[in-house]
């Protein structure tokens, strides 16, 4: 099932933490109420991910407590975060 870290794409090296174009990461956190089938559907709907990828991200959220579901410039990351909140998912933004 899940053998690699989820979607940690395009992260620059650790020595470049303050690089201005380092992408913002949209993180979804596990919660006890949201349904697995619904969360998978939301990832497909919002990000256009195929079912397999959306399902894997959902399982990462469920088992690891959180998963990075998208990334990009701040404006895009905030927009994604907003849409996740509109769908009731617990999402935050980070560069870490």
């Amino acid at each position, binding site marked *: 099932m899940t053998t690699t870290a989820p979607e940690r794409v395009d992260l620059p090296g650790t020595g470049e933490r303050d690089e201005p174009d380092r992408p913002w990461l949209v993180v979804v956190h596990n*919660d*006890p*109420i*949201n*349904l697995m*089938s*619904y969360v998978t*559907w939301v990832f*497909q*709907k919002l990000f256009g991910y195929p*079912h397999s990828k959306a399902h894997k991200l959902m399982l990462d959220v469920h088992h690891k407590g959180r998963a990075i579901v998208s990334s990009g410039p701040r404006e895009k990351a*905030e927009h994604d*975060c*907003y849409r996740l*909140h*509109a*769908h*009731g998912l*617990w*999402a*935050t*933004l*980070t560069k870490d």
Partner: protein
Amino acid sequence: MADIDVVADGIRVRLAREESDVLRGVLDELRAVLRGEIDRSDAVIGRLFPDAYDSTDEADSYRELTTDSLTRDKLEALEAVRDALGPRGPVDTVVEPEPAEAWLRVLTDLRLAIGTRMDVDEDAMSRQLDPSDPNAPALSIIHWLGWITEQVVAALRATDGT
């Protein structure tokens, strides 16, 4: 029990009188929360409008930019569902796929609001209902709303082939 079926022009939702009344009731409660003064100390508000950033300053400015719009989106979806239920009695309505997505958001907000109010955890959500538990009625509503949610997700998948 609620019936959710795929039909030619969308998703047919049938709810018995008692079910419809419960749904109207919890919708009206959520509407009151969303229409009221947004109280950040209320855990339900905290869950429906989570902090986007760890840093207080960034979380505050994000919230300032988004709360009105997010509240409006949530209320708009809620009113659409409320309208579809009609004022009283059992429900038998066909919801087109796009409005059905609003149903999912509303059902989710309802479950989050009720569950957060009760401070449920994974354990409480997965346990068999214990009739002597004072939270049992609210938990059964969460599970019932969850069952409807699952059916609507499945119906949407059948409709759009995902």
